[in-house]
């Protein structure tokens, strides 16, 4: 019988990659290293109630003990992390995740003060998945109905004249199947389970030193629950968190991205790339989004330039590792 039973609550179904390849093995590893003194019960698919935006609060208040959630679901809550959501920030999920975790450990103590942070990480950079029209240049986005992944990217696509629509992930597949949407912007990791690769004909990937955009995730534990663990069990948790864990999760997402992409290849879809001069043109075109972010953050009394620079240099650091 375990001494400590921890409830891990998250939103994705049990068959998802995050559940089966990341959370379940993580839980098993912690259980094994604690010699069975910690037992982690997984509750996927919001089984403990509430909606995904409430996952963070549930762990903060101890309704669940551990959670894994998308930071963007609670806009305004983690302003410092939004630097990683800017266009042309992310590198591979591995490097970006490790950078984000170090950034969180040094810059985000106040934003994370209510929980015990295990790791922050990102997914692999997203791509364009379009139904009818292949997107070869930015001009091709003009007038298309584009589902943006978040508010920052929604502003970005408007620069290209796209008609941005924000709809829940659950609506997306049926919207794209009949053309209510022309383009979805997502990582392949989401394209695979939603079967969007069967509904679209074209994919456009960004090929340069950085990817188009990413989202950040928070893997966190209730503070009191962590504090109540004896030192040796805290060490088990510590051994399974931090920059190393962030890198591990990032690698999982990078590998799964390639796996998921292979389905689109097998489907016989076309692939286009934004590279070279076009890549530079995109970067220039989306520059106003970065400037607006700097302005907004400065208005809110953050040292926006410093944070941006720090995020950039951390990504470079882990890229070269």
């Amino acid at each position: 019988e375990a001494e400590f039973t921890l409830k891990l609550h998250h939103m994705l179904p049990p068959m998802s990659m995050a559940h089966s390849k990341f959370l379940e093995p993580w839980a098993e590893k912690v259980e094994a290293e604690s010699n069975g003194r910690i037992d982690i019960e997984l509750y996927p698919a919001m089984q403990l109630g509430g909606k995904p935006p409430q996952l963070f609060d549930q762990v903060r208040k101890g309704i669940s003990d551990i959670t894994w959630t998308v930071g963007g679901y609670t806009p305004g809550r983690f302003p410092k992390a939004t630097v990683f959501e800017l266009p042309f920030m992310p590198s591979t999920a591995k490097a970006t995740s490790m950078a984000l975790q170090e950034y969180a450990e040094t810059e985000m103590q106040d934003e994370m003060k209510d929980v015990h942070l295990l790791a922050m990480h990102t997914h692999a950079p997203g791509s364009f998945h379009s139904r009818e029209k292949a997107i070869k240049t930015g001009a091709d986005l003009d007038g298309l109905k584009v589902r943006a992944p978040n508010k920052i990217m929604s502003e970005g696509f408007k620069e290209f004249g796209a008609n941005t629509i924000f709809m829940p992930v659950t609506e997306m597949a049926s919207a794209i199947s009949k053309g209510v949407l022309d383009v979805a912007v997502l990582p392949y990791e989401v394209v695979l389970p939603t079967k969007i690769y069967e509904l679209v004909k074209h994919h456009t990937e960004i090929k340069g030193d950085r990817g188009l955009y990413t989202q950040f995730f928070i893997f966190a534990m209730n503070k009191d629950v962590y504090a109540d663990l004896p030192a040796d069990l805290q060490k088990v948790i510590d051994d399974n968190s931090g920059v190393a864990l962030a890198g591990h999760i990032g690698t999982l997402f990078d590998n799964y991205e390639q796996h998921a992409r292979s389905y689109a290849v097998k489907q016989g879809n076309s692939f286009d790339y934004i590279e070279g001069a076009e890549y530079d043109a995109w970067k220039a075109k989306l520059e106003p989004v970065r400037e607006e972010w700097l302005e907004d953050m400065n208005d809110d009394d953050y040292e926006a330039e410093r944070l941006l620079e720090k995020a950039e240099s951390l990504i470079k650091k882990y890229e070269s590792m």
Partner: protein
Amino acid sequence: MKLSIMNVVEVGLKRVSMSFALLGGLIMLCLAIITVASIIGRTFFGQSVEGDYELTEVGLAMAVFLFLPECYLRKGHIIVDLFTAHCRPKTLHLLDQLGHLIFTFVSAAFAYRMVLSGLESRDYYEQTMILELPMWWVYVVGVICFSVCTLCGLQRLMCSPVGEQNE
């Protein structure tokens, strides 16, 4: 004297509940119109209504809260009366009073806890993604409506005569 005060309360609650229900219904009608406007906009003018999905979610939650008191007053909640069909009126009255008691208690519990959650939602700037609508307004509507439900429940508990049963 006591009777007439209770009558005033009863009439007042009825009016409030009905206006709430109408307001909620109008919200749903507006949401339908916004959705249609958004569809027309994106199909013909290349621009949908900004944040139409969020508006639907927030509006829906408010509308449902506003619907609750009227549903209770009109005995809209489903009950199983097959097994109690042959009970004496007095027994039925007792069972229905139990139902009213639970309803009152449940509504009060929701109202009380939603005050706390609503305050917290405000303190943590809980808001929607695109329009950045603050969510605590939805809690305000919820608290008001569950409070009205509680009052309706109390009113029923105190003055429903034997013989008057749920349908």
